[in-house]
């Protein structure tokens, strides 16, 4: 059975590297403050406007635009915790999120799945959801699991709740959910209670977090603003995922994109903190860009890496936990384009060192999840993490004694030093082909097909202990209630 926790050697140590100078960070942050004080944000949730007005935000009741004095931004954003626990189904899988913990997770919310047999995408099924949950649970370099691809068998209103139940049954890792609205979140909290026992326990080590997103430019929908407040009340962490399309729903420049994302995400943070002081949050800038030939929004260009790095830098500087979409592509297949785009992005993400690194498994501009890519990304995470660990220089690693002992013309293979350090200094990978030609030729597979066999191996051998019958029945009862009411 595969180990589900990272080896000690791969333990977290990341960043800090920045694409922005300190001066640029401050300038962009001040730009966002200016936007919030002067332009303001349209917030459709009345409840959110009320709590913000209570704290001193300037609300125009007619236009629903809310403006934030600088002092208020600092006061409220300063309440957001810089570190908290992301709970697992058992406490062994609990994680500690910090400003630079670089916890990895798959993408949440794809609506197609890539089918290797046809080389085409198709509608996902419940079986795809279960398989993805098990594979991520079994892959050691994923810290969290997520609602990877939404199957179509469940009707849209309860898709998220249904998915959450499946994840609770098929993973022990912390779960990232992409809900449709606040009512979903309520049912998920109820389900979390079945596993975790009490509201206090949920608040202490929340088993899931949710993703929300302002609608660029500068609009917060009713359902996401309410979801932020509902989740915050229960202590469920919330991601603020501003996603402007540069040149479409956001300015085309990278600096403009960073300012807008920072401002919009800050508003999410302010809603959360105004409603529930100290509520766990994190910000996930998603700087897409419009392809000016076809008008699509891009999720894999190199500027994605630059603007994400910059926005993460600015948010981290403000003491806000962050999420960097560190692997992604616009390619429709897990091909070389996918490999190129995500490898570049992953290196940047780990160098910058955010709280979370997301994106595992998505291709096709976030529309499609690929189980094969999910497996390949586990290895990319390992390589990128190894990269940022750098070169350790100490007496034993310099190996002067060993070199002296082996002497001119000798060899190091039989040395205990070699045996001890080869695993510590050299990442052990299993997807990258390093065989002799003859051995490779026996199967003749490329990395995508090897990742498929690795996935199949996990599916045939990896087991997540089943929940107790009573818990499963209770989850089912909650889902049924949701089906009747949502």
């Amino acid at each position, binding site marked *: 059975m595969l180990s589900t926790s990272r080896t000690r050697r791969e333990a977290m140590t990341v960043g800090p590297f920045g694409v922005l100078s300190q001066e640029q960070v401050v300038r962009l942050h001040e730009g966002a403050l200016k936007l919030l004080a002067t332009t303001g944000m349209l917030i459709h949730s009345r409840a959110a406007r009320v709590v913000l007005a209570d704290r001193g935000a300037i609300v125009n009741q007619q236009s629903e635009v809310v403006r934030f004095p600088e002092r208020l931004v600092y006061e409220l954003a300063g309440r957001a915790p810089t570190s908290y626990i992301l709970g697992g189904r058992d406490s062994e899988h609990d994680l500690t999120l910090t400003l630079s913990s670089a916890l990895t997770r798959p993408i949440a919310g794809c609506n197609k799945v890539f089918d290797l047999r046809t080389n085409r995408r198709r509608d996902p099924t419940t079986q795809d959801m279960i398989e993805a949950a098990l594979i991520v649970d079994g892959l050691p370099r994923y810290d969290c699991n997520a609602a990877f691809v939404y199957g179509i068998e469940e009707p849209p209103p309860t898709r998220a709740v249904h998915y959450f139940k499946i994840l609770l049954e098929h993973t022990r890792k912390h779960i990232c959910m992409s809900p449709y609205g606040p009512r979903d979140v309520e049912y998920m909290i109820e389900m979390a209670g079945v596993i975790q026992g009490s509201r206090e326990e949920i608040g202490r080590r929340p088993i899931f977090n949710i993703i929300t997103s302002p609608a660029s430019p500068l609009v917060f929908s009713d359902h996401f603003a309410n979801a932020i407040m509902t989740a915050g009340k229960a202590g469920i962490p919330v991601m603020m995922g501003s996603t402007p399309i540069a040149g479409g729903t956001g300015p085309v420049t990278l600096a403009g994109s960073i300012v807008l994302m920072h401002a919009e995400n800050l508003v999410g943070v302010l809603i959360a903190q105004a409603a529930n002081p100290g509520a766990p949050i994190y910000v996930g800038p998603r700087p897409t860009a419009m392809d000016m030939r076809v008008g699509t929004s891009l999720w894999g260009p190199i500027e994605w890496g630059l603007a994400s790095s910059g926005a993460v830098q600015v948010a981290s500087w403000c003491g806000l936990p962050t999420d960097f979409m560190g692997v992604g592509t616009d390619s429709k297949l897990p091909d070389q384009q996918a490999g190129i785009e995500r490898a570049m992005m992953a290196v940047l993400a780990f160098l910058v060192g955010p709280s979370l690194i997301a994106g595992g498994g998505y291709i096709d501009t976030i529309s499609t999840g690929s189980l094969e890519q999910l497996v390949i990304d586990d290895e990319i995470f390992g390589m990128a993490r190894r990269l940022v660990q750098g070169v350790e220089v100490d007496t034993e690693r310099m190996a002067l004694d060993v070199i002296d002992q082996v002497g001119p013309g000798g*060899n190091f*293979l*039989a*040395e*205990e030093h*070699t*045996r001890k350090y*080869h*695993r510590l200094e050299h990442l052990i990978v*299993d997807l990258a082909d390093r065989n*002799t*030609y*003859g*051995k490779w030729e026996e199967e003749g597979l490329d990395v995508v097909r090897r990742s498929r066999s690795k996935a199949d191996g996990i599916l045939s*051998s990896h087991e997540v202990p089943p929940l107790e019958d009573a818990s499963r029945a209770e989850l089912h009862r909650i889902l049924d209630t949701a089906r009747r009411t949502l």
Partner: protein
Amino acid sequence: MPGPTQFSPASQAIIDGDSQEALQLVESALASGKSAAAVLDELTQGIHEVGNRFGTGEFFLPDLMAGAKAMKGAMARLEPELAKLTSRQSDSAGKARILLGSVKGDLHDIGRSLVGLMLEVNGYEVHDLGVDVPSERFITEAQRLNVDVIGLSSLLTTTARQAESLIGRLIDAGLRKRYLVVVGGAATSSGFAEEIGADGWAENATDAVKLVGGLLVASRGTR
């Protein structure tokens, strides 16, 4: 996958590549009156497990090396005792003899040494001629030592053909059938072995042990 097999402490010491522990366990086993043959059995189980784990990717070359070294050290202590058991037979009776060397022009040492070590700890008598060995020397030494197998190593495409010339010389001298000739090293392959008329090819040290074992069994009775 079967559950974890329980290994005896001596087997485990070989698996762990712990030379000191292995030697100490051999000493105490002998002191307590255990038969040398029984101790050998445990050590052999250990080195087989090392080979298995290398085969499955769990173990790496340094682990293989450490296991083999521990085995070699333990065997050195055990051999005089084993000789007493079989005192009426000659010293190395029953052991197949293997001559190894890197072919002329080839200075690569590491892989061949590991093959030699693995063969040795799996019960063969190994004579390693080292690097840059001319064909004539292989033949004179093979005759002098009365070996069963000649193992040729080549890592360079420019030197690999030396193996072919050696086989040619053996044929010319009417000695080809006297020896099993096997090849290995980066410049070789099973196709290459077949092409030059060698008896076998192995990818790595553990495969080499299997190859030689298989060939010797197959050739028994024909020579």
